[in-house]
């Protein structure tokens, strides 16, 4: 049962990443600096960057129900394979989803394109007062 839920959470993350890259869904900033939100009409998805016990960045995806309660979580994990710790399959997608959600919510592309445009064609400001 838990494996089934984890599989579905993983599929949700993969699909959401693809839709975010395609520009088909929108993310927004939240009152937590490193957390970004996607909302549907029945539930929301919160992607969070946090610091793990070793002080390294880790990522978590929370599913929030109609009341805003986190009902399921897909977390950054490390699997022990007998010789050492390997990153769990979901780690890569969680990291990419956080990066893409941040890019989308903060409209980073628009800001960079605008800057580049202004640098290439600097607006001319007159030193004369406008009167």
């Amino acid at each position, binding site marked *: 049962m838990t494996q089934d839920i984890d599989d579905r959470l993983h599929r949700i993350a993969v699909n959401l990443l693809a839709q975010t890259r395609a520009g088909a869904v929108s993310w*927004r*900033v*939240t*009152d*937590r600096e490193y*957390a970004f*939100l996607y*909302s*549907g*009409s*029945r*539930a*929301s998805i*919160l992607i969070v960057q946090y610091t793990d016990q070793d002080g390294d960045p880790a990522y978590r995806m929370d599913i*929030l129900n*109609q*009341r*805003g*309660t*986190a009902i399921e979580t897909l977390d950054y994990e490390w699997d022990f394979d007998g010789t050492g710790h390997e990153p769990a399959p979901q780690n890569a997608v969680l990291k990419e989803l956080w990066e893409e959600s941040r890019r989308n919510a903060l409209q980073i592309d628009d800001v960079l394109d605008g800057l580049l445009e202004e640098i290439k064609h600097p607006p001319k400001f007159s030193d004369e007062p406008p009167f």
Partner: protein
Amino acid sequence: LILIPQLKWLASELDIAIKNEDADLTRRHLDNWRGQAAHVRGLLLADTSAGKKQLRDVQESVALAFTATTSLLEGKRPVLEACKQARESIGSVCNELSIWVAQQSTQSGRDEQ
């Protein structure tokens, strides 16, 4: 429809708590918003005249109220900064729902004629 004024009252109480920099009361009002707005969202879901955007915006306000609560608990920032996004979302949901109520009233007035 009678729940909408309740939501607006809650939003104004939230504003007062934020203005007074009362983090505990702000958290309580945000939590109340989550409960009340979830109830309204359920009623909107059953109403065919309510659009998907309305449902999504109410859901978003509930989720943002949750993240603001966490932000307030961390206690790193002033109350207003710690719940700015949630407050904006709650304000726009109140406006949207007020417009929707007005439209519903006009429509039912026409239907009665």
